[in-house]
C-alpha cells in the first residue's frame, strides 16, 4: 500500500504557509479578521456576517474584500514555490 504520509519537505512547506497565513491575518483590523475568518473558514455568507457583526451587507463585503486583498498580497509570492 502506498503511504500517504506527507513528506518532511511537504510538512515543512505546510507549516511555512500556515505561518504566512497567520502573518497575513495579524495586521488585519479586528473587523476584517472576523469577516475573513467567518467567511473563509466558517462558511458564513456576507449577509450572515453582517448580521453577526452588526454591519450592513456592503460593509461586511468590504471587510471581506480588504481582508482577501491583504491575504493575497501575503500568500501570492508562495504560489510558485
Amino acid at each position: 500500500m502506498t503511504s500517504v504520509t506527507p513528506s518532511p519537505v511537504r510538512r515543512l512547506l505546510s507549516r511555512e504557509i500556515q505561518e504566512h497565513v497567520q502573518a497575513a491575518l495579524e495586521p488585519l483590523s479586528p473587523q476584517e479578521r472576523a469577516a475573513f475568518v467567518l467567511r473563509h473558514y466558517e462558511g458564513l455568507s456576507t449577509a450572515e456576517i453582517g448580521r453577526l457583526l452588526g454591519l450592513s451587507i456592503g460593509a461586511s463585503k468590504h471587510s471581506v474584500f480588504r481582508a482577501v486583498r491583504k491575504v493575497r498580497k501575503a500568500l501570492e509570492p508562495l504560489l510558485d514555490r
Partner: protein
Amino acid sequence: MTDEPLNEAPRSRAPVVHPTDDDLVLHYYDETDGSPGDVDRHLDGCDDCRARYVTLQRVMAMAQASALPQPRASFEEELWQRLAPAVTPRRDWWRPGRQRIPRWALGAGAAIAAGLLLSIAPWPTAAPRVPSADSAEAQPTADLLLLSVLDVHFERVSRLLVEVGNGSGPADLLRARVDAEDLATSNRLYHHAAAGAGEAVIAEVLDDLGRALVELSRAPAELTPSGEARLRNRLGPGTLLFKVRVASATIRQQSAAPQPAVSESETPS
C-alpha cells in the same frame, strides 16, 4: 483580454466589462451579485480574467489548507491576566462537587477558541450590555467567570458543529459523538448556571445546544450513509451555529463591560 463583454450580447458595441478583483472574490464565494453564469461565461472567454481567477483560487486554497490560524502563544496567559483580578477572590466559585473545573476551557478549549475568539474580538457594533447596579455589584466575579467559561464553551461547540457538518465517514462521526457526550455534560452545568444567573437568552441557546449534543452523542454507531448525511445536515453549521455565534458575541460584550472592583472584604484571608 477578449472583446466579449460580461453582461452584453455578443454583438453589442458596449465596452468590455471585466470583473473586478472584488467581483472575483464574490464569485469565488458563490455570492456574485448578478448571475454567476455571466462571470463564468466571461472567464471562459477572457484569458486574463481567467488567469486572475485561477490565481485567486490558488491563494484561497492555500489559506484554506492551512486551516484555522493557530492561537497566539500568549493566548492563555492573556486570558488569565484578564480573568485573574476577578477570579482570585472567589477561586472556589466553580468547584461545586464533582463538576469539572474548566481547565480544558482555559487550555485546550481556549487554544481551539483562540483563533476566532481573539481574532474576532472586539465585536465592533453591538450595543454593550449595561449591567444594573444591583446585578453588577452582586456577583461580578461569578458573572465574569461564567461568561468567560461560556465563551470558550460556545467556541468548542461551534468547532464541533463545523466538524460534524464538514466531516465525512463513520470515524469522524464517532469522534464527534465522544466530544458531544463530553460537551453535553458541561452544557448541562452551564445551562443551569446561566439560568440561575438570569441569563435567559444564553440559557435558551444552551438548551438548544444541549438537545443537539445529546442527539449527536446518542447517534447509532452504525448509520446508513443517508442517515449520516441527515444527521450532519441537521447538526452541522446552520441556524444553531448562528445562534451560538450571536450568543458568543453577546458574551464578549458582557465580558468587556466594566466590572466593578472586588472589595477587600471579599478577598479570602
